[in-house]
């Protein structure tokens, strides 16, 4: 159990304040843990995934007796101690060879967890190609028709997006898009179980294309992992619902009287107010011309003058 810290100086106070719940959250920190036994493949995968997640990542280099599907107290402790909410645990055993467990926390309690076994992996250092800079925002690609259907796929997709999407931003530098994480879902096995998934990482180069849009070329940078799904622990529905709550401040403000119809066209409703019939323009006609009081006055004096004129003549 962690002792509660009472801040004794401003620095600690700032750090603790930064850890509090906020409307706009910090980038999630990930911890990469080696289990009691690991293989070279798992070690390579962990260090590569760590490289991609840097600088919001903590690498545990020592081995830990950790079995996330049996006991989660370790994870809770690490989560509280490091203010981290994402975990990758690498283990290797006869029963479950080359296994990575992706886990996610909500409020320092385990939310959900998915296990994948690496069938074939190539480390980043084995590709003699240029690498992306540290801390760049990746693009994601999920290929295949499985990603919305099976719980394992859905969770893995959500997990990967959560791990690497970084800060939610409203604008992005086009020159800063350096690499893509492309995950392809292979076909289901003959027994109807989830098949392999292929995770590939490429750097992007923009080429001239003669038009405004650039031509994209990809160069593999690594890691490259072929994986199969293992055990899965889904989130409890009520906790999941709570974790998806959006604070009022971040919700988009409703605009009045603007709707979208089925075709995706924007339809607006406008209130014109009361129409003033006196100012309405109808057909112009001399007889309908409105005469002001002044006009009337002028007309009567004219008449008088004319009468006077005639008198003078006589």
């Amino acid at each position, binding site marked *: 159990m962690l002792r509660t810290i009472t801040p004794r100086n401003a620095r600690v106070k700032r750090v603790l304040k930064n850890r*509090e*719940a906020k409307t706009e959250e910090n980038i*999630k920190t990930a911890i990469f843990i080696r289990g009691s036994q690991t293989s070279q493949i798992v070690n390579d995968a962990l260090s590569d995934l760590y490289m991609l997640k840097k600088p919001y990542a903590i690498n545990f280099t020592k081995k830990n007796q950790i079995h996330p599907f049996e006991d989660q107290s370790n994870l809770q402790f690490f989560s509280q101690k490091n203010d981290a909410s994402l975990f990758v645990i690498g283990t290797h055993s006869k029963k479950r060879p080359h296994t990575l467990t992706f886990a996610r926390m909500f409020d320092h309690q385990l939310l959900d967890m998915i296990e994948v076994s690496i069938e074939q992996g190539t480390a980043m250092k084995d590709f003699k190609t240029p690498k992306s800079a540290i801390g760049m925002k990746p693009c994601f690609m999920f290929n295949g028709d499985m990603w919305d259907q099976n719980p394992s796929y859905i969770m893995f997709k959500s997990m990967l997006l959560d791990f690497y999407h970084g800060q939610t*931003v409203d604008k992005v*530098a086009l020159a800063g898009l350096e690499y893509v994480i492309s995950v392809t879902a292979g076909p289901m096995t003959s027994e109807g179980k989830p098949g392999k998934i292929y995770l590939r990482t*490429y750097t992007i180069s923009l*080429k001239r294309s003669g038009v405004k849009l*650039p031509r994209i070329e990809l160069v593999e940078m690594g890691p490259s992992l072929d994986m199969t799904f293992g055990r899965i622990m889904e989130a409890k529905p009520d906790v999941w619902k709570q974790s998806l709550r959006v*604070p009022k401040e971040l919700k988009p403000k409703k605009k009045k009287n603007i709707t979208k119809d089925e075709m995706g066209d924007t339809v607006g409703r406008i209130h014109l107010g009361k129409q003033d019939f006196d100012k309405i323009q109808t057909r112009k006609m001399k007889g309908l011309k409105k005469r002001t009081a002044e006009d009337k006055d002028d007309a009567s004096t004219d008449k008088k003058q004319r009468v006077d004129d005639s008198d003078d003549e006589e």
Partner: protein
Amino acid sequence: MDVSGVLEAHKQKFKSVSVEGKVIPVEYDLGLLAAYDQNPVDEAELKKNKEEYLHSLSRDNAQLLFNEIFQLQTISDDNGVMAILPAPTTLLPREKPLPKPKPETRWEKFAKAKGIVNRKKERMVYDDATGEYKPRWGYKGINDDGSKDWIIEVPAGANPMEDQYEARREAKKERIERNEKRRQRNMEEAAVATKMDQKAVNKGDRPNMDNARSLKRKEIESQILISKNSTASAGKFDEAIKGDLKPKGIKRQFAPTVTDLSKEKAGNMSILDRVVGKNGEDLVNVRKAIKATKRQ
């Protein structure tokens, strides 16, 4: 002049930016820079030459994604050209629950009722005595309450031997103490209101503070009643205090003298089971019980 040939030749020089062969249009979540390609993968091709197939598939989808991103509205910045991204559509869980709203203090409640609005005041104010700007409060502030005056007039009717400096210091200390007490009270009431109005707090609203005072009173009363029952004799031999709280709503229940025999037996057995049964260890301190019976 026909330039179509020239244009065609110019086009030939570059590779195309368009991607063909997508039966289902690719979906995008540009807020996360993600593309979801729902088209089924080509199994035969995947088996035959995996790496090339995955590379070309990724390239095509990256091209489509970049076509979308480059069509977004852009602005130029110190960091170069920036594309303005829409809000993400894929929901990702939060790391921590929504921040808890701060409950109303008594002053806030009063100010709201009276329509008092907080006005911004400058931090530095002009000090007439020295002709300098000084902080309104805090270190070297002007609210030192005259405790730095070199001479103080003795107020009418005051004891001339009394130290007026001391009196001012005391008064200030008292005010600080009173304020601290109020802060404490606000915190206690807030804790009760937050506990009682979880519905609003979970929604992210301020808890209802309307009857925080009576709730706090109720809580304290219940705590007193618990403490009264917490003596060794469960409060049986305590002397009654005049005007003390009496537990409300506790009614003694008597079982009817004649009942179904099986029910009575089951009840007794359950008591016996709790005391000496498998789970009875927590209920009775066996060591103590043996000692007590031996003494008799």
